[in-house]
């Protein structure tokens, strides 16, 4: 483990930032935090988490896929990608860091590989930052994510006026090597005692002990057919807020834009909550908001785990609890299904 004084944080950012893009959480003019590119003078935010998750770096809200030029009856195809610069993201919390594996499993591990995403993942070095003051809306522990020991290429802790850094991967080692001159070696005693305090706080959070055992493939149709979806979805506006702030939501749309000089084909974030998500010329299998609402939560709690060894497509970051305009969220869904008498029992 390595350490440097907190007062040297700017020097650390400057050294990293001089080699390539560095992104840190920064307060914006509405008082919330978002990842911004570090520049001299930019201060890191003290917020618990950013409004949008770190998925933006690997799965941006819009991305040019391919360019076409029509030349009479011929079509020219151009892959518009340029060699990406290596970049560093500093200050990613454990929840967002855990979400990368969930998205990787679909975009990289399921063939064919999404090379756009993979390329960004390969060029990005993630420095995670341990939490010390979780919010009441946090429940990462429900999914066995340890906010006091975040994964990532380098893990960082801020304790006792110092920043402690622990490289975990080759990329992490290379990053540490590049700033070695600023660091001293250290034992992990201070970090461990902070971790104990944080873990104690986390175990007292209200939603870390929900029962998720009933969300299995065998119970899929029973949960699907439950009557609770009517009341859960009645106020849903069908906007995409939950989807877009969620670190594990990864649906996209492929669209075209006529630049006047050719066609730009791009992909953009999409939400299963939108009315046209499954609309076909002939019919729409999800005609009302209830079906769409149900789809999102069934996917997160049942369908994704069925294909991915039981891992839920949720990291307990609590963003949906904070951002939903009408305050519906995955915790309310889980609790409502829990409390409905005809629901299947979880394994005891």
């Amino acid at each position, binding site marked *: 483990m390595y350490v440097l004084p907190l007062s040297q944080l700017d020097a650390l950012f400057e050294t990293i930032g001089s080699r390539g893009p560095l992104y840190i959480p920064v307060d914006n003019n509405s008082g919330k935090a978002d990842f911004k590119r570090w520049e001299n003078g930019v201060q890191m935010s003290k917020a618990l988490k950013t409004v949008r998750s770190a998925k933006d770096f690997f799965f941006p809200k819009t991305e040019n896929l391919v360019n076409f030029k029509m030349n009479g009856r011929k079509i020219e195809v151009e892959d518009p990608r340029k060699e990406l610069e290596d970049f560093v993201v500093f200050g990613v919390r454990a929840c967002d860091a855990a979400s990368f594996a969930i998205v990787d499993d679909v975009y990289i591990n399921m063939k064919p590989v999404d090379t756009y995403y993979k390329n960004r993942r390969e060029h990005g070095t993630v420095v995670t930052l341990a939490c010390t003051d979780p919010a009441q809306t946090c429940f990462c522990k429900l999914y066995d994510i340890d906010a006091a020991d975040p994964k990532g290429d380098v893990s960082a802790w801020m304790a006792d006026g110092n920043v402690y850094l622990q490289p975990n991967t080759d990329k992490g080692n290379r990053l540490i090597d590049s700033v070695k001159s600023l660091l001293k070696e250290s034992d992990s005693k201070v970090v461990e005692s902070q971790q104990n305090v944080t873990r104690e706080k986390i175990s007292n959070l209200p939603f870390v002990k929900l029962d998720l055992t009933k969300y299995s493939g065998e119970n899929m149709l029973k949960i699907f057919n439950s009557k609770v979806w009517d009341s859960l979805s009645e106020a849903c506006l069908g906007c995409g807020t939950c989807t877009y702030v969620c670190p594990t939501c990864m649906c996209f749309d492929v*669209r075209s834009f006529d630049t006047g000089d050719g066609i730009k084909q791009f992909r953009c974030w999409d939400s299963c909550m939108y009315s046209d998500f499954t609309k076909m010329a002939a019919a729409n299998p999800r005609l009302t908001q209830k079906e769409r609402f149900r789809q999102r939560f069934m996917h997160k709690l049942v369908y994704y785990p069925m294909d991915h060894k039981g891992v839920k497509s949720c990291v307990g970051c609590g963003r949906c609890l904070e951002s939903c305009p009408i305050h519906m969220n995955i915790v309310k869904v889980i609790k409502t299904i829990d409390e409905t008498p005809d629901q299947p029992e979880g394994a005891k």
Partner: protein
Amino acid sequence: MQDNKISSQLVSRAKELLSSGKVQLVIGWRKGLFDYDVTPSLFTTAEDIENNFVYNEWCGANLSKYLVKETRKIETAKDTVRMNNKMAKMKDPNAAEQPEPQAKILVFLKPCDTYSFTELLKEHRINRDDVYAVGIPCDGMKDPEKKELSERCTVCKSKKHVTYDELIGEDGSVQDSNRFDMVEKIEAMSPDERFAFWQGELSRCIRCNACRNVCPACTCEHCIFDNPDSGAAQKVAADDFEESMFHIIRAWHVAGRCTDCGECSRVCPQNIPLHLLNRKFIKDINELYGPYMAGSDMETKPPMLTWTKDDANPGVVNTRDTAGATQCNCNGGR
């Protein structure tokens, strides 16, 4: 005062109206996991209301828009029965007529919500007979993140309930608010400063459409942004240009109908102060066509839908803006 006393008054009145059969459905706010995450909800039983209904300082959600969908359901049910009766009568003139299902919805409306309600009635989006509106008092709603009074409540325009069947608590009056202060501040900026301000704000937009979906003025059956043939979509476009255009287009579409309820800014996950765009329109309409507040009564003809010979000519905006104001360097785009 939205303290416990008022909340329990609402609860007992709702239970009363439900049990007496005067209403069949109640739209109100449901308790959440904490005190601040109340959800707009339908209640159909007295028990549910007793256990889960709440009215507190976190009930910012404007319930009037839900009436569009709910009254439509009632009217469709009535239409279906009427049609079935007609078809039955065609087969057999002595066929018994099924009674039309009568249903009334009880909705609780804060003063600002009653403006949206009135505007929706004016636009024939809600069937008045299907609604039993109860006006409730409001001392301002809090922002769940900042835990202080929402900006929109600090410049509250009116404590008056415009349309209601019944009032709980006292009625209030139109307030002398300075809600155009921030608008004036932006107007006073140079064009370049103003552009930078809005670029900074609107660049955070993720096209979630929460603002459009919550807005009581946005009730188009088929929104232009949901129409693939329009060239625009309800999601992020190839570049950032459309993020800004979407909000300006939407502000134009609701101009003259926006009741300044402030929901758009409340729901924005990126905290973009969208209501300022709408307030600018309201201010301009006041100046160019005379003071007008959408939803403040059922009679006044909306200025954007009526034309008189004395209406301001299009050129007046250019004259007003160029008189004494600094020119920007865009040269009219040339």
